[in-house]
């Protein structure tokens, strides 16, 4: 995914007089929020698959067209809360007016892989009936982390750090996902590097990941206070 070199905060971006900056801002926002929005629509509003796809596209398209987010005030709520309120209001109005949800009118800013999101829903989420506030929040965190991992992969690919990336993926992504407790020695053997290299590679990759994650987070926060509060919540110091 192509990312702007410097990410403005959403608030700055969507209010910008410069159409390119505004478009980048919306692009960043859609990248982070479209999956939580889609899944939320499927679960809270019980929209059918096709209906939810249309509603997701339409919501973002309408938000851009009508500049929904110009009204956002960081002093009153977090941006993710504000966006969810906008979404609920949008859906309620659509239903009230009994207007058929339309497609996004070709205004899609980033390609939205609905099949993938639907697969995630079916595979992991749909069986449980979650608290939808918590669910939206958890999906938002998942999106942020996934985007930061994509950013890290892109950064390492460009820098030719294939081995370093492999160590990070094996130790911090695959092993926990598989429920495996592996050691640095295991990773060193699998990747054909020294144990000290594993230590160094992980150290550097985690530092880079943290930077990229916080960059992503900053881009979707209204101001420094919101960013600090969200960062405190997102990063939790290794304790449950």
């Amino acid at each position, binding site marked *: 995914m192509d990312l702007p070199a410097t990410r403005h905060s959403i608030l700055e971006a969507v209010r910008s007089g410069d159409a390119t900056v505004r478009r980048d801002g919306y692009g960043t926002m859609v*990248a982070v929020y479209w999956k939580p929005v889609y899944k939320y629509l499927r679960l809270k509003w019980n929209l059918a698959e096709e209906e939810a796809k249309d509603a997701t596209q339409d919501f973002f398209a309408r938000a851009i067209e009508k500049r929904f987010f110009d009204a956002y005030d960081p002093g009153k709520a977090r941006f993710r809360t504000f966006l969810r309120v906008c979404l609920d209001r949008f859906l309620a109005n659509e239903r009230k007016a009994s207007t058929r949800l339309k497609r996004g009118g070709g205004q899609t800013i980033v390609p939205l892989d609905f099949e993938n999101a639907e697969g995630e829903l079916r595979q992991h989420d749909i069986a449980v009936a979650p608290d939808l506030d918590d669910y939206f929040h958890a999906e938002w965190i998942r999106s942020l982390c996934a985007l930061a991992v994509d950013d890290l992969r892109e950064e390492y690919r460009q820098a030719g750090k294939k081995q370093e990336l492999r160590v990070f993926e094996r130790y*911090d992504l695959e092993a926990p996902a598989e429920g495996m407790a592996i050691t640095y020695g295991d990773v060193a053997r699998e990747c054909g590097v020294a144990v000290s290299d594993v230590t160094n590679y992980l150290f550097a990759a*985690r*530092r880079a990941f943290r930077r990229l994650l916080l960059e992503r987070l900053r881009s979707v926060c209204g101001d420094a206070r919101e960013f*600090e509060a969200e960062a405190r919540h997102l990063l939790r110091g290794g304790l449950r």
Partner: protein
Amino acid sequence: MTWLPNAAIDRLRDVADFPIPATERYEILEPIARGGMGTVYRGRDRELERTVAVKVLSAVVERPDVAARMQQEARILAGLEHPGIVPIYDLGVLEDGRMFYVMKLVSGPRLDEHAAQRPLFERLRLFTRICEPVAFAHAHGVVHRDLKPDNIMIGAFGEVMVMDWGVAQVSEMGNCSGQIANCGEQLSAVVGTRAYMPPEQAHGEVVDARADVFALGGILHFLLTGTAPDASVMRGPRPLQAICRKARAGTPAARYPDVASLAADVDRFLAAEPVMALPETIADRMIRVGRKNRVAIAIVVTYLVFRYLIAMLAA
């Protein structure tokens, strides 16, 4: 976008927060506790070759005024040299800009773990020892603002340590007799723990030392009942109930004016003297005098019973 399962998300959130000091001096090992403002890690001071506690302030602080205030607080707390206050050894910055304090590593149970099986007398003595460092801090212009059983540790030799001064408020005047002016912007409007928090703090208003008096009243409640003040009704001797109520009065003016007065009232109870918080009835007085002189009363009663029995036998 990559699909990440929950276990991978958990791992990423943890590793992204793991602190990396900008200096080689400290090695950070594993997290041991989480406080109001950050996470405490077991660490190692490579220069002095000793184990330390490293408290890393939460996540990210970007506003320079807040960072400056935190630094100022660390310096003032470092100046609070009292056996009941964990000493701060050093202050530093992580690679990512977060601040950290290096402190003495205290090992031992927390008050809530320690007090459960202790007799009342011992719990009350413990309480008065908790009051000492708090009163000392107040004399130096520092209000803790998050006193609760979880923030008090009992050391290996029974010493009391008041922990987690991360949300402490520092006055510019150097004492806490009056209201404390906020030094710059607060990190958040409301800090602390609800069950032990006075109403003025819960409303985000300016607080003074009587906010800690309120929290100490909650700790006394906990020591009497084993539960937080919002989770049970008051139990125990009436004078102690009255002390709790006075300490936890809704308005600061109705509370003890300072921690020393609160501790003194508990000391009065321990000495079987009348407490300031409870006007004494005749029944209260008889109970108290009886408790205070129970040995002498037992001797007199035994003597009288023997006299009576001897008189009966003689008749």
